[in-house]
């Protein structure tokens, strides 16, 4: 029995040495580059919440999402896979023309190909890049959305915007 106990003790020592706790983080920067002469309101929904920004004509704006976990347990030399920030939905409101495009395909890094013609056009305007120091434990992801006239052309009239952006349209 003593041999078994010694064995158990040694085993635990070995195991505790090969497991360690590190701080992991995921950063996603969503940049909207507006190449049109329209004023845009951009909203993005992720598993961390919803954020939005106004993008002036021929301007750009950045929205960032960040999450961290100080108690990520990893083994020596293992391939770590962490739950990345998921983009669940994107909405682009063209404030100038009261039109909207809604992109509903979930993605985190590689954009979904899209089923409809509109989704495919939108998907072609998404550009992904990893940060210089991005790793699987500390990922840094830049997603660029370039809005040009082809995106403007797939937008649909949305009269509810008059109510949603009441303050804007009052001016």
């Amino acid at each position, binding site marked *: 029995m003593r041999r078994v106990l010694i064995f158990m003790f040694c085993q635990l020592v070995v195991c505790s040495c*090969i497991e360690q706790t590190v701080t992991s983080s995921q950063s996603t920067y969503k940049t909207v580059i507006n190449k049109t002469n329209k004023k845009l309101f951009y909203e993005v929904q992720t598993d961390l919440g919803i954020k939005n920004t106004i993008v002036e004509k021929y301007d750009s704006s950045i929205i960032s999402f960040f999450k961290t976990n100080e108690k990520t347990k990893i083994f020596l030399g293992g391939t770590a*896979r962490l739950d990345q920030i998921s983009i669940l939905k994107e909405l682009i409101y063209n404030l100038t023309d009261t039109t909207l495009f809604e992109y509903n395909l979930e993605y985190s890094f590689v954009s979904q190909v899209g089923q409809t013609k509109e989704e495919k056009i939108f998907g072609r305007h998404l550009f992904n890049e990893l940060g210089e120091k991005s790793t699987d434990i500390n990922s840094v992801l830049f997603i660029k959305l370039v809005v040009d006239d082809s995106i403007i052309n797939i937008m649909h009239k949305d009269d509810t915007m008059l109510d949603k952006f009441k303050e804007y349209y009052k001016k």
Partner: protein
Amino acid sequence: MKKLIYIFAFVISTLTSCDKSNVEDGSLPDISVNTVRTDDVNRSIRPVILGERKENPFSLENMKIALDTLKKIVEQSDEPVFKANEIDGIELETTDLYVRLLPQDSIQYKQLMNDTTLTLFDFPLDYEIKQSGDYYQDPTLKKPFTWYYTTVKPGYIPPVGVKYEIIEKLFIAEHSEYYSEEPITYAENTQQAVRRNTNSQGIDTNIFNALCVISFKLTGNEKELKQDTSNILPANSNKSAIMKITIPNCTRYTVKIGFVKISWTSCDPYYFPDGKIKVNTPNGEVGVKGIKVRMWRWFTYADARTDSIGYYYCNKDKFNSVWIGNDIDYHIIFEGSNNSNIWTLSRSIFGAICLWTNYYGAGSHDPNGYTMTFDTNNDYWGKCVLNNAIFNYCDIAKIEGISLPPDNLDIANKTGLYSDSGAPLLNNHINWSLVYAYPNFWGVVAQFFADLLVGWAYPDLMLRYSGNLKDYYKITSIAWHELTHASQVNRMISEKGLLWASDYWSANVYQQASNTFKDYNGDGNNDGNPYGNKGDERWQIIALSEGWANYREQVLAIRYLGQTNYNATYNLFLVKYLKMFEELESIGCSFQNMEKSLCTYSISGFRDNLNEIYPSLKSQITIIISSRL
């Protein structure tokens, strides 16, 4: 011999209350009843809970008492037909030993587990089971060691050092020297069949059935004998309630005892269980492929393996319908196989140290077979997904010309998909990572003691899973990533030899472990990044092996799982090499030749190997690879 058949009829009619209505009509049972019971399917991992110890009807002692009883029945009968001389001549001898074994250390444990001639149970076989479960730990012993129960032949010599106890001597009729079987074809009529039986040299099964029935009765286990099953079938079922007859060879027997005429039909007296083991996936239910299904009752046990649609059929071993009763127990053992590839999903400490093989106690069910589906709320769902990932990978590897993984893989698995997996392959190369860590005498000593201490439990792969259907593709893809490493090592062994491959993989395992402790971003803490950066020590090994595994993971996820947006890694350093393989494939380099060319320590070596295989693509290959040097 004819008389013995009558004796069995007499004993059956007097000692049991079997419903004869089904047999008296002499009709051929023609159905396959696969009862689907969903009880306990959605449960967590739980232990086996034992009830009372049962009096063993198969013990030699009890069987001898049963034989004496049978002889008295014959003697006391007024029917001349029962004056059977054959019974007097029977002397029962031990056919099997019911034993238990306790390994004293890890080496003995491993030795015992590797003995394929033994079918080991971690719980005693002569106890009531109050709760079927997935493991049993003898309360008088400390984990992880526990007694292992099985039957062996007399004269069995246990492994040296393993504690060994004979619990009881057994008489199992089918293992007796008296026992023989003769098929009776359907074309024969009753008279012919009986006549042929009479001429046979062996003693008919029915004498043993009679013995067994008496022994079960005398030991208080008569409730386990076969009962009428008509009441458990749905009311609207148009199927006969008679057990499934797998070989439709039946004979109708009749005997007149005084004024009573007893008729019965002896059809094929065996159960050959079959069924399907399935797992729920985003694409619906699919078979759990290549896993072992173990069926047992008392000291009769049999293993069958599922095929690529999850179907199993117990055709090698069988269960005698009289001795088995209405139920047998089913275990689903996560010991997978696809041709020569075998893998074991093991319960583990911290998901890294392999302990014992995972099995799922599916409970007692119809001896005709059992069908079940693992859903996400069953703790074993993820193990089924992992198992299928490995099975499918072997098929894909063959199609794509990739090396198969090593023949035997010990896989430590646990929940926590968003944790880390790995392919240390410690049982499939001579690992000297610690010598890399401490390149001196102490490194050798440390490696020796590590092997001694936990060598028996070394994992080849560490795989993770969750209980979430949306993670199905990720669980599968990550398993494929690690299997790609396993294939690569196997390729290196076949191309360069075991020592070369061992040095390569030891260096890789050491370097990645070492990198985990480094602080790359300068925040004063370990980053836990095993891959490091370009220019670090052994960065080229990591770039090639991890770039390749990530590339393959991504390709397989896209092509075989339809995950068109699948991204294998967020590591910029590795993405460059992932794309390198992507570009090489686009110009016509095959997976097989890329894998072969990876048998090198450097990127330039990889380029040279590939150029040698594809001289016509030399300039393109050089351009693609040189930008990553």
